[in-house]
C-alpha cells in the first residue's frame, strides 16, 4: 500500500474512532488540499524532459492515452451515476436532458 493511501485510511479510522477530533485537523487539511495541484507541478515538469524517450511514437501514445482515458471517464461516471439513479428513482427530477434522452432509448 503506498504511503499516501495508507495515510488516508489511517486518518479516516482515527477520525471515525474519535482518536483525533475533527476540529484539530480540519484547517490544516484544508490548507494542504488547497495546495494539492502545486505539489504535482515538479512531476509534470518532468514530462517534457522524458518526452524524447517516446518521441518516435509520441502521437500514437497521446491518442491511446486520451482515448482510453475518455473511455474510462465515460464508463466510470455513467455506470456509477446510472446505478445510483436506478437505486433512487426519486432523484429522477434532477436528471439532465441528455441523460434522459439516453434512458428513453434503452
Amino acid at each position: 500500500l503506498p504511503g499516501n493511501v495508507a495515510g488516508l485510511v489511517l486518518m479516516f479510522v482515527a477520525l471515525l474512532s474519535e482518536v483525533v477530533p475533527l476540529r484539530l485537523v480540519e484547517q490544516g487539511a484544508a490548507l494542504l488540499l488547497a495546495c494539492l495541484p502545486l505539489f504535482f507541478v515538479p512531476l509534470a515538469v518532468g514530462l517534457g524532459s522524458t518526452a524524447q524517450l517516446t518521441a518516435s511514437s509520441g502521437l500514437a501514445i497521446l491518442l491511446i492515452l486520451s482515448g482510453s482515458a475518455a473511455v474510462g471517464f465515460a464508463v466510470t461516471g455513467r455506470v456509477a451515476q446510472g446505478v445510483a439513479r436506478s437505486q433512487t428513482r426519486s432523484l429522477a427530477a434532477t436528471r439532465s436532458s441528455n441523460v434522459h434522452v439516453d434512458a428513453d432509448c434503452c
Partner: protein
Amino acid sequence: MSMSMQIVVSASLTVLAYVASLKLHARYPSSITAPAITASVGIALILAATGIGYAAYRRGAEPLVELLTPATAALAIPLYKHRRVIAARALPALAGLVLGTLATLTAAIVLAVGCELSPTLIRSIGIKSVTTPIAVELAPLVGGDPALTVTLVVATGLLGAMFGPWLLNRIGVQDPVARGLAFGAVSQGFGTARAAAEGEIQGAVAGVAMGVAAIAMAMVAPVLIPRLVQLLM
C-alpha cells in the same frame, strides 16, 4: 549548487510559477489554463532558458513533492465529513469503479496493439491509470518498463485533469460521487487534485477510488495484461 540552495531555487521557482498560473487561470478560466499545467510549461521554459537541468530542479523540488503524501492523506477529512452521502452510494460506486477500470485497461491495450507499439510499451500503457508508487512496482510484473510507466502515468493524469471535467459535463455526469470516482480511477493523483478543486465530495471520493483501483489493479493486472495482449496479437 549546494543542496539547500537547490531547494530554495526550485521551491521558489515552483511556488512563483504556480501563483502566476493561478492569476492567469482566474483571468482566463479554461481547462487549458489549469494552474498545474501552465505552471509546469512555464518552469520547463525557464529551465531550458537558464540551463538549469531538470535533474537539478527535481532534486531541489523534492520537499514539495514529498508534501503529496500528507496532502493525499488529508482527503480523509472530507471523506469523514461526507461519509454518510458516500456510504449511501457504495454499490453504484463499486460498479462504476470495477467496470471503469476494466474498460480503461482494455481500451488502452486494444489501441496500443492496434498502433503496433512495442510489447514493453503496450504493457506499460496497460497500467498507466494506476497511481505512481504502485505502477512502478507493477511494471516489471506485467512486462513493462518502470521509467516509461511513470511518464505514462503523469501524462494520463494531466490529460484527465485537463479534459475530464469537460467530458463529464458533455455526457451528463453531474453526480459528485460519480465524478470523483472517474477522476480518481482514471487520472489518479492529478485527477484527485482536480476533483478536490471541484468539491469536497468529489475530492474525497477520488482519493478513495485512486487507492481502491490501484490495489485492485495490482492484483489482476499481472494475470490480465499478458492474457489480453496474447489474445489481441
